[in-house]
């Protein structure tokens, strides 16, 4: 009897203390994206991308949006920081803001230039927020611009940019985490950058059902932050793979270059011929899916030098030159041409980062720290000033293992060359 009473008394407090944070699903406003813009010093404009469950429902059942309602809504509010703005926003919302699915954070260019230090704290502190979050800088625009734009392929622009990012060859959904890690390492930071782009060619709708390309969101490249976490500049799409490759994060990329076809295809010609004067050149595209990077710091004197060896493995996806790819020596020619081209590109971008941005986004400082911890201690404080003048020895070596389903082109070659 006493045992039963004791058991009951032990059970009852559970009901009193348990997590009484029960919140029905239909009383929550699910936030998929969160944007921050700088209005003026100390005043931020927060924008939230909320799921509209009703619209998704009709969309799911009948295919397409019903009655012109899109699957999301945006709401905005001013505030002194994230939480303050969120509270101000809550006054306009009938449901509790639920940030547990906030996978995408947008930062306006103005705020990025002003510096992101002051607003990033909440993203790491709040227990509701996932560490695997994308953070984007909106180039030449505000977060609100990017978030209000309807995206055609997905119901929600926040989901759309997340998916675009996933296809970009960079690590998936960890740009916020990586930003925090980098900021604590070499002190600078990098974030993917978005841009609102108009269609390449403007076209009018001729009939109601036409669907010409529209202004849409696009992944521009990467935004680079200096050690004060202010925007230093951008690397465009064709530049930021360099950073990914050097830091060993690239998962797939297509490289296209022009090959000097005529000289290269001479019978008995050497691989180097592919590089000589481009009298008649055509493009060759190579898809590389395995990347390797090896960075070795070498000390000659006081300052280190870095040996960077980039390796890749891929196959030829497109060959518009008259090169006969069924011959091994021709593939070697493409390899040689590619290596030279890629090395040139890498050097260019590295130089741009060193001279223009002065931010060690390649993690060279971290490498130094790992290889020579004591020397790094001396250098760490001045790294920002030392980095732009560091000597880099870059070598790229591609290994092409395939030519697709055909070797020789299926079309007859009318421009000459060896068959």
């Amino acid at each position, binding site marked *: 009897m006493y045992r039963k009473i004791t058991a009951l008394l032990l059970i009852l407090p*559970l*009901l009193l203390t*348990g997590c009484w944070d029960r919140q029905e*699903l*239909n009383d929550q406003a699910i936030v998929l994206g969160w944007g921050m813009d700088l209005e003026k010093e100390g005043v931020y404009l927060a924008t939230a991308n909320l799921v509209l469950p009703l619209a*998704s*429902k009709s969309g799911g059942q009948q295919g397409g949006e019903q009655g012109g309602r899109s699957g999301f809504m945006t709401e905005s509010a001013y505030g002194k920081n994230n939480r303050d703005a969120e509270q101000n926003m809550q006054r306009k919302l009938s449901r509790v803001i639920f940030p547990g*699915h906030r996978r995408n954070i947008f930062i306006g260019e103005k705020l990025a230039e002003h510096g992101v230090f002051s607003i990033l704290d909440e993203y790491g502190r709040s227990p509701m927020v996932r560490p695997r979050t994308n953070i984007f800088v909106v180039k030449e625009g505000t977060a609100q611009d990017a978030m209000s734009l309807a995206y055609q392929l997905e119901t929600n622009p926040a989901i759309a940019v997340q998916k675009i990012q996933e296809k970009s060859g960079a690590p998936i959904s960890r740009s916020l985490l990586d930003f925090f890690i980098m900021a604590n390492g070499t002190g600078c930071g990098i974030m993917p950058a978005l841009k609102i782009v108009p269609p390449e060619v403007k076209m009018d709708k001729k009939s109601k059902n036409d669907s010409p390309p529209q202004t849409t969101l696009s992944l521009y490249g990467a935004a680079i932050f200096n050690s004060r976490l202010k925007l230093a500049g951008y690397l465009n799409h064709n530049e930021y793979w360099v950073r990914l490759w050097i830091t060993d994060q690239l998962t797939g990329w297509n490289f296209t270059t022009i090959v000097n076809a005529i000289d290269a295809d001479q019978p008995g010609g050497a691989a180097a011929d592919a590089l000589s004067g481009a009298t008649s050149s055509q493009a060759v595209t190579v898809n590389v899916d395995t990347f390797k990077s090896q960075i070795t710091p070498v000390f000659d004197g006081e300052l280190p030098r870095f040996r960077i060896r980039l390796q890749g493995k891929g196959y030829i996806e497109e060959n518009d030159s008259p090169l006969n790819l069924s011959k091994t020596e021709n593939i070697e020619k493409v390899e040689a041409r590619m290596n030279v081209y890629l090395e040139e590109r890498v050097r260019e971008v590295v130089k741009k980062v060193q001279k223009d941005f002065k931010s060690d986004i390649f993690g060279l400082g971290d490498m130094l720290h790992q290889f020579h911890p004591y020397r790094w201690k001396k250098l760490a404080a001045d790294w920002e000033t030392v980095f732009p003048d560091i000597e880099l020895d870059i070598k790229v070596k591609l290994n092409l293992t395939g030519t697709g389903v055909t070797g020789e082109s299926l079309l007859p070659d009318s421009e000459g060359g060896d068959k």
Partner: protein
Amino acid sequence: MEQQTRFSKSEEPEMLSSDLAFNIERMQLEFLNCSDVLYRHCSIGGINRATLIHVDGMCNVQAVDEFVLQPLIEHFRSSSRVDEVREVELKEVFIPSIKISIVYETQKVIKAILRGETAIFTEGNAFVMLADLVKMEQRSIEEATSEKVVRGPRDAFIESLRTNTSLLRRRIRSSKLKLECMTLGRLTETEIVIGYMEGIVKEELVKEVRKRLQTIELDGIIHSSNIEEYIEDNMFSPFPQVQNTERPDVAVSSLLEGKVIIITDNTPFVLVLPMTYWSGLQAVDDYTDRFIYATFVRWIRYTFVHVSLLLPSLYVALTTYHLQVIPTPLVVSIASAREGVPLPAVIEALIMEFIFEGLREAGIRLPQQVGPAVSIAGALVIGQAVVAAGIISTPMVIIVSLTGIASFAFPVYNLGTAYRMLRFPLLLVSGVLGFYGIVLFLIVLSVHMVTLEPFGVPYMSPYAPMTIRNLNDVLVRAPKSKMRWLQPWLAQSGAARFPKRKK
């Protein structure tokens, strides 16, 4: 009634008289108003020389006529003596093929008559000859209805005790199979048989079973479940501690594992004890299918077992407390499905589970003519209209029907009922405390399950406490040639299914 008890409790047993008329009167008093008791007198020349008493419908009347009545009459006709018939003579009268016994006590005669034997009272003898010509109406052996198999024997136990024992005996042709007889129930005098394999079973287990059965003091044993409730260790546990089966092959394999079975007359369900949790999850098909497939199916079953317990509570906890755990696209689609639903998820789940259980309960006892009506109402009204009306959300209907299907994946029905019942408190707890509550509940449940020890055998054995060499019939179903060792908790120590093979 009072008289009867007085007779049975008197110290000296009441003996029969040598006066036939007195004896018959005594019997008529005993069977007053028992219209099914027949008296057949053999009057020769106006004098009653012998009387046969048997219960109508419980003996083979034709055989009684042919082997008892006719020889008697012929004997009396041919015999010149009128006064008395000697015992030896009488015995000679009947062809020796009938089982005949001689009884002197009144109570024994009464019991024998009630068992269906034919009592032969003769003039001048203070004893009764009992002819065992019992033949009762019984149904033929049919296919098991509650435990279906794809491949395996089709026969099932029936209500007749001896038929059931014969089903066992013809599977185990060994004198090691012991079938001890006992009579239980003050009024019903139900025969039960305790079966076990000598040399495999632990002696203490048989002793314990005997002891517990002897303590049963009931007026009647109507089903084997009456016994089950009496001998269970923990009667307040939701988990069954005695398995029941209507399949002789299950009973036989249990016997060979060292378990004890109890066959009850008039019940087609044989009790197998002690039950362990894992034996409740092993189906006959596991052993008739190839072992790889059997292992696969067993894992599906384990999954569904947990689905039947956890799915509704997990859904409620996830959607009301832990939204961030669900993948984003799923959360959006659940949110849109729940849009406009007026009830909280817990209440929604409780209502739907309740309705499902009601449908199931109604379905068991449906007369065949109204069956379609209920299934139409159940499937259409509950399944569709409720969602169309926006009272219950679609995911909830999916969850409940999945849970419903899963709860029928249990090979042993009464283990399934335990889980079905536990679903409701778990649902409440998850609605109040979320994952925290579910985990608390599961901890309490696990503690309870490992502390259960029906007949001294741990309920979760061989998993907890673990005997590694027996796990090959728990997590997987190993080929028969690899399952050498019997469970040490059940069988005598060192008992193996086959001797060690020579290399």
